[in-house]
């Protein structure tokens, strides 16, 4: 089973990764985007249970005071659905993902001994006038280093 855990700031708190994004988007000439929300995403491929995924999300991947999490699960990557008006950025296959290595270690520290594969990604959700052309320009111009990262838009 694949679990995708997205971490979101609670109301009243902000993540610096999204703070300047709107002005950066205007800076590359994309108009009509009103707001953006950033979420780090952790994709865990393992035979862990949903309960264990929740423990990983609440005890490890999110901060109890300032953040909240959501979990989606699917059997294979082909079942995954991309959220509307969003961009996801992930490392290309074969690129070293150092944060994921730390997460694998930390999951073991939590006492979960199952074999886990972890990938880390970034998710950006936009509000305003979006279309594929604008999202592609934002993804390639600002968010993804296409040499080592791939992006998906919807």
């Amino acid at each position, binding site marked *: 089973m694949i679990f995708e855990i997205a971490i979101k700031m609670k109301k009243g708190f902000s993540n610096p990764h999204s703070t300047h994004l709107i002005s950066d988007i205007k800076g590359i000439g994309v108009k009509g985007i009103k707001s953006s929300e950033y979420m780090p995403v952790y994709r865990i491929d393992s035979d862990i249970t949903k309960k264990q995924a929740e423990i990983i999300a609440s005890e490890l991947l999110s901060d109890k005071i300032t953040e909240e999490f959501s979990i989606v699960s699917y059997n294979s990557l082909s079942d995954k659905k991309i959220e509307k008006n969003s961009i996801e950025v992930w490392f290309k296959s074969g690129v070293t993902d150092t944060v994921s290595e*730390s997460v694998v270690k930390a999951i073991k520290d939590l006492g979960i001994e199952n074999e886990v594969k972890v990938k880390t990604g970034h998710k950006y959700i936009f509000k305003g006038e979006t279309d594929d052309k604008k999202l592609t320009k934002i993804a390639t111009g600002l968010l993804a280093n296409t040499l080592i990262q791939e992006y998906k838009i919807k």
Partner: protein
Amino acid sequence: MKKIKAIIIRTAGTNCDYELKSAFEMCGAEAERIHINELIANKNKILSYDILAVPGGFSYGDDIASGKILSNEIKNKLGDNVKKFALSGKPIIGICNGFQILAKMGLLPKPEKFEQISTLSYNDSNKFECRWVYLKTEKKQGDTKCIWTKEIPDVISLPVAHGEGKFIADEKVLKEIEEKSQVVFRYCDKDGSKTQYPEDPNGSMNAIAGICNDKGNVFGLMPHPERYVYALQHPAREGYDGVYGWGKQIFQNAIDFLK
């Protein structure tokens, strides 16, 4: 007389551990930098020390969030003994990344509860702040609750270097630590008055720069006292006895407390 023994926990990405060792040694203690794996392999080793210090730095590359992975590791692998250490009344200090670790594992502000009820989050400026700041030492009837800050002047300056130093807790927790005089240092201007950015480098709730537990032995702070043990390290060469910086007094206090 038996020398007081301080342990400094180190792992991938910790820094200022040598400065911390040197600070304890110049105050008369025997200090050792011990890797976390060695402590996990020998779980009772930590209890043979008199002072526990968690240094600054970027443990595990600040992956997930600052201090998150080391706090998770210490809590799950050494939690019982670290809690026992804290409740025994022995001095514990967490500096910068060390403060983030103590808060995220829940050793501060309530080690008896040992659950996370506060955090250090992104600076309001959204950038890394690396400079000297002024701190007001919180005192009640002229004295501090924290055993680490005895004889510290009302206003001192210390260097900060962090991107996630904004102290956050919910209203109830904040009220409780204020009422119990657990706030040790607040960011201030040079006269000790209330201030805002840039004197307050991160926008912490109630300008909190450091807190202690109710007993006063567990202390966490974002500024770096180990970087100011000599007056020469201060931009204006300020200090005491013509030689020392006020950071030294913080470590001296822990050692004097144990004597």
